[in-house]
């Protein structure tokens, strides 16, 4: 992260006093003990003590906090539930953490228009819980959905196991209220589709807290399918499982969920959850089919046939809701399961073209031996989103460093085979320095110019996403660099 500005650190008391004038009482935290709770997010390998934490409870207060920080020249790090796996909410020592935890109410449940209006601090799962009595649910379901906030989901454009069929956050979002660093409040979209003008709603989604602070979210809700059934499919190898995934999609079937685990992940999950996974299988697929009962029956038969053609060695179809949840229990507890067999782990996140899967897994095994660190893989197989879990022990000197380098090599590999650095966790600080493997300097400058349109002083969450920070004035200069040719012969009609 950029070195903290000493002058700002020296003004700490003034800054805290100014924030207290804007957000009263316990809305400002400056005590070292209390601040410690905010020193990291879900990416626990990186920590920093913020200058102060401010917890406003209204949009107007957020506006006043941002205005005060802009006038004082103080950086701001927005934070939802603090579950980011890429360090999106990692504090800055010379910056204020703006927590949205007090924005915890659901404001409107509108079943007629099939949408919910919620404050950003509401947990993802709480939205589904608020509408399930009427048979509806909110589709994106990141595995941290009990804890992660809907505002954070918007900031990271979070996905989940059902997003191949139902989309990620951006595809399920109708409206936002957002406060810019200028203190200005914008309302984008609403309960209708597709605002005219530039799609600011789409731009803000996944902007990782660098463009504005979200203070209200309108999401669309869907009718819960009548039937959901899971198939548990064991294969001798990842290649065979990968072929099965490709065949299912080639047959025109988009399952509600399609998850793959490699052998180390199967063993860890089975030992932890006792889900009945075949411990010897080279790879395991969970294919979930949802919809009307007749449709699910029909698709189940087709997927079974495809799996047999691909050499499935273990095939079970859930016969009850209880069994379906049991199939999922191992996959859903893969992270804590790995946490039990290793003191620490990194959860990586990259997307690859699916056809490259076996190449990527093979190379990952080689890297695993080279670095002397174990790796287990869970994989959103339908959309090519890999989550390698790198196992390490932070107490062994050098292991954290090796784990970081191993992770970086995996992500570079994803880009090399035609994929991207992150599928659903965001860039944050974790992948910031790898952005150059995927984007040119011009690509990144164009992105930063967009940032300048929102936050010309670069005060909102600086140090995330972009490896090199440029001043907006410098980025704004127009160089006329005409090429050697002027195309005098260019055909004109």
């Amino acid at each position: 992260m950029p070195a903290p500005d000493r002058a700002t650190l020296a003004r700490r008391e003034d800054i805290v006093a100014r924030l207290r004038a804007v957000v009263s009482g316990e809305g400002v935290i400056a005590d070292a003990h209390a601040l410690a709770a905010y020193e990291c997010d879900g990416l626990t390998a990186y920590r920093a003590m913020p200058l102060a934490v401010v917890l406003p409870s209204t949009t107007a207060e957020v506006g006043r906090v941002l205005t005060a920080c802009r006038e004082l020249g103080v950086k701001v790090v927005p934070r939802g539930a603090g579950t980011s796996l890429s360090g999106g909410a990692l504090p800055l020592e010379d910056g204020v953490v703006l927590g949205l935890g007090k924005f915890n109410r659901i404001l409107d449940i509108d079943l007629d228009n099939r949408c919910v209006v919620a404050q950003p601090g509401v947990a993802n799962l709480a939205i589904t819980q608020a509408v399930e009595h009427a048979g509806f649910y909110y589709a994106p379901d990141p595995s941290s959905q009990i804890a992660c906030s809907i505002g954070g989901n918007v900031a990271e454009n979070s996905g989940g196991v059902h997003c191949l069929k139902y989309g990620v956050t951006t595809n399920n979002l109708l409206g936002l209220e957002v406060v810019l660093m200028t203190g200005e409040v914008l309302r984008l979209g609403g309960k209708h589709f597709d605002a005219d003008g530039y799609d600011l709603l789409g731009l803000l989604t996944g902007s990782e807290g660098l463009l504005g602070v979200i203070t209200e979210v309108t999401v669309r809700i869907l009718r819960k399918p009548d039937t959901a059934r899971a198939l548990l499919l064991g294969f001798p190898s990842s290649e065979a499982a990968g072929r099965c995934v490709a065949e299912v999609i080639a047959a025109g079937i988009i399952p509600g969920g399609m998850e793959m685990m490699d052998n180390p992940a199967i063993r860890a999950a089975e030992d932890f959850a006792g889900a009945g996974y075949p411990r010897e299988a080279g790879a395991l697929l969970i294919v979930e089919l949802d919809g009307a009962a007749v449709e699910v029956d029909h698709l189940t038969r087709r997927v079974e046939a495809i799996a047999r053609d691909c050499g499935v060695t273990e095939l079970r179809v859930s016969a009850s809701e209880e069994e379906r949840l049991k199939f999922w229990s191992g996959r859903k507890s893969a992270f804590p399961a790995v946490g039990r067999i290793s003191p620490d782990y990194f959860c990586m996140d990259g997307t690859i073209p699916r056809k490259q899967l076996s190449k990527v897994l093979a190379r990952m095994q080689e890297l695993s031996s080279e670095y002397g660190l174990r790796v287990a893989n869970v994989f959103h197989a339908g959309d090519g989103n890999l989550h390698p879990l790198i196992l390490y022990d932070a107490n062994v000197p050098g292991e954290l460093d090796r784990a970081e380098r191993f992770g970086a090599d995996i992500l570079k590999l994803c880009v090399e085979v035609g994929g991207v650095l992150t599928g659903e966790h965001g860039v944050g600080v974790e992948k910031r320095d790898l952005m150059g493997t995927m984007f040119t300097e011009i690509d990144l400058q164009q992105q930063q110019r967009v940032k300048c349109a929102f936050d010309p002083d670069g005060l909102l969450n600086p140090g995330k996403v972009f490896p090199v920070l440029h001043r907006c004035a410098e980025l704004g200069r127009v160089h006329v660099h005409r090429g050697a040719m002027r195309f005098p012969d260019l055909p004109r009609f």
Partner: protein
Amino acid sequence: MTGRLRPADAAELREIVRAALEDDEPLEIVSGATKRGLGRPPQGTPLDLARLEGLVSYEPEELILRARAATPMVAIESWLKQAGQNLAFEPPDLGPFYDLPAGRQTIGGVIATNLSGPRRIKAGAARDHFLGFSAVNGRGEDFKAGGHVVKNVTGYDLCKLLAGSYGTLAILTEVTLKALPAPEDVRTLALAGLSASDAVRAMGRAFASPFDTSAAAHVPANLAARLGGLAGQSWTFVRFEGPEQALRAATDEVARDLAAYGAAEILDAAASAAPWRAVRDIVPLFPADGSCVWRASVPPARAAEAVAAITARLGVEWYLDWAGGRIWLRVLDEGADGGAEIVRGAVGAFGGHAVLMRASDAVRLKTAPLNPGSAGALALSRRIKQSFDPKALFNRGRMYDGV
């Protein structure tokens, strides 16, 4: 620069933009030139991208299609069809609506205007299927964003920003799209004679059913004759897509659930095609006589109220798509502003907005076809325009004055 510019490749395009930058010469970005009637009237030297066409790669099992930006939609649709896939947002062909031939539009134009058809309510808009691009910005620089995989959150989602930007930010040279399996089969449940408010309730009920409802539209009696073979009364359509067995269950059960609204007719795939194509391509509001046509977005359950508020003050023909979420309106007595004040006032009361889709140049200059929104949003839009195109070379003023 005078005349029409037709670069052969991205490198020539870049040089043209650099020359325009030096000469401060605005450019009108065209490929199929079928959407010049949309937005504010075009200005600048025509820059014709027609030669930047062709397939880059298509891998059906990866659900990814990459094509150069001026590739005709008919070509893209035929490649997809061969693999049993489609663009799920059901792009309309508005050529005839603008009094031009059908089949001429390009993928770049569809993306730049974020045009989506009836299935948008289920599957998302053009912007939701636009995964990555290469482009030239107003500095004459090549840049890219997004990726060639279906899931990606690396950097800002500039695809969303470019979709629906009317070519005002950058010139697309290549686009990456999400291709999805086309539905196996189609059935439409058709209810005759419903009022607007009953139709809105019935369509809402259908979307609250557990079946794969993919579209819902309502066409009043006075326009029904333009749907082909259906006349004399209003029609309310609910479309289901999927395997045949599932469709039978869906139409049976939803028809039973909607029995209070009358007996439903079931249209098979062949009979479904014409009405949905008509709804998609604004056929009920033909003829293309230059009269003002509006596209309003409202919370779907409020559509009948919004229509009532407009018809009380303005002579219009109208029909509904997106279960009421989209209202198409043709103004019969347009006055100086094309009905803007009344239409925008009425849908604004429900939190919605309206785009002027077709009007004379005079009305398009006087009435903002796209609503600039609040002063703050307009100022931000100007700063975003400047961040891509600092001298406002591209499609100057197509969206708003100066943008």
